[in-house]
């Protein structure tokens, strides 16, 4: 039976892991290779690395970081952040990513999804959606690390992205990111009902309870950052709790 994946997420600035709250106030959170190795050995099912580098120089360093992480990692590696073209994706894949996540560039140029899927296959293309809750239960797509609003409604955008070739959707609640107040379950249900590709829940996980709720709201995988980086939970404890709740996990 297919297992629910538990995926640590590393936000990387150049050659360091950072983590913020609601996409702001980034703090240093360790060496990416150390982190990757630790999570691998602890039983992570996959790793997501988001490049949040602000400068060109840091971006080049992040590419080298991908290669260094790859050399120790025997599980899948998804890399996102600043992917604007097939060439950007190609460089990441050559450096060692197995999948690329696209966000802002896909919203601004949806055809990028078609191009990536045609070139690398849908299983390689992850759409990353940053969603902001609006009035009356409406969720809006935001871009540029959550700083720019768009007119797009989240479910519509996800359906379009899948039709264009996205093979997986990473949905992050901007309102919950780093707040440890749990995933936005309404958002997860909305997206997982809208599309038939796997959905990764992200933004706000504080406990194994939240992960279980995310899975019950349709997520095929759950992303966690703050609670793992700060040592408040371990992969093993989270997986143990998931299994106790009847969720199939890899042990």
């Amino acid at each position, binding site marked *: *039976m*297919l*297992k*629910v*994946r538990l995926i640590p997420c590393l936000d990387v600035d150049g050659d360091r892991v950072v983590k913020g709250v609601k996409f702001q106030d980034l703090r240093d959170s360790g060496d990416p290779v150390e982190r990757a190795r630790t999570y*691998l050995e602890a039983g992570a*099912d*996959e790793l997501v690395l988001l490049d949040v580098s602000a400068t060109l120089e840091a971006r080049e360093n992040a590419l080298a970081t991908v*290669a260094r992480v*790859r*050399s120790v*990692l*025997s*599980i*899948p*590696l998804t890399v996102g952040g600043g992917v604007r073209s097939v060439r950007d994706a190609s460089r990441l*894949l*050559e*450096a*060692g*990513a*197995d999948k690329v996540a696209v966000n802002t560039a896909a919203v601004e140029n949806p055809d990028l999804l078609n191009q990536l899927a*045609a*070139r*690398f*296959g*849908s*299983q*390689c293309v992850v759409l990353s959606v940053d969603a902001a809750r609006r009035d009356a239960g409406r969720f809006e797509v935001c871009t540029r690390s959550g700083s720019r609003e768009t007119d797009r409604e989240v479910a519509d955008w996800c359906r379009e992205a899948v039709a264009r070739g996205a*093979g*997986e959707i990473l949905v992050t609640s901007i309102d919950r990111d780093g707040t440890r107040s749990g995933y936005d379950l309404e958002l997860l249900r909305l997206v997982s009902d809208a599309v*038939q*590709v*796997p959905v990764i829940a992200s933004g706000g996980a504080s406990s194994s309870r939240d992960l279980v709720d995310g899975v019950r709201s349709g997520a*095929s*995988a759950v992303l966690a950052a703050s609670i793992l980086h700060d040592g408040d939970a371990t992969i093993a404890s989270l997986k143990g709790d998931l299994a106790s709740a009847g969720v199939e996990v*890899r042990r």
Partner: protein
Amino acid sequence: MTEEIVVVPTGTANLASVRSAFTRLGASVRLARGPSDVLEAEFVVLPGVGALRAAIDQVDALGLREPLRLRVEEQRPTLAICLGFQMLCAASEESPGALGLGCIDREIERFGSDLRVPHLGWNDVEPGPGSFLEPGQAYFAHSFLLRDVPEGWQVARTEYGSRFVSAVQRGAVLGCQFHPELSGSYGERLLGRWLQNSREALRC
């Protein structure tokens, strides 16, 4: 001794992951440039992600179709991964009209429409008797599947909606629908056993 693994560049494959997996096992990796590389190599890996037609066109462009067929027929150490595994078959619903290598006389099918596809993530691998495959959990990322194999192949199966073929083995030929290079310690052990098994076959 350091094994040299010759990898077929199918254009779209996650070569860095394949390379790093074998590097961790102490082997060295280089890319096949032409037919003689594939014919003469002790170990060949046929990786692949993406669509079948693009990958098989690449194999043809490099003149590797016959060398690969021959290797598999002679059961020489050859590892086919994911799309590479599907390329061993005769054809695929994914790319109508594209001609697979035909080593396994079967057609690749689409997953049922009621499932979340791609089948993406870790799932149980259940080998039948008689192969060096072992039970465990491996990482999958695919939208098409092989339902069954002809006589003569050892087989492992996995369930997603229904049961499908997740690995085949015959002599030193190993085909995996899953990604051993991304399957953690399970995958590392499998790659190690394939190398070991192949070394023994080469000595015979």
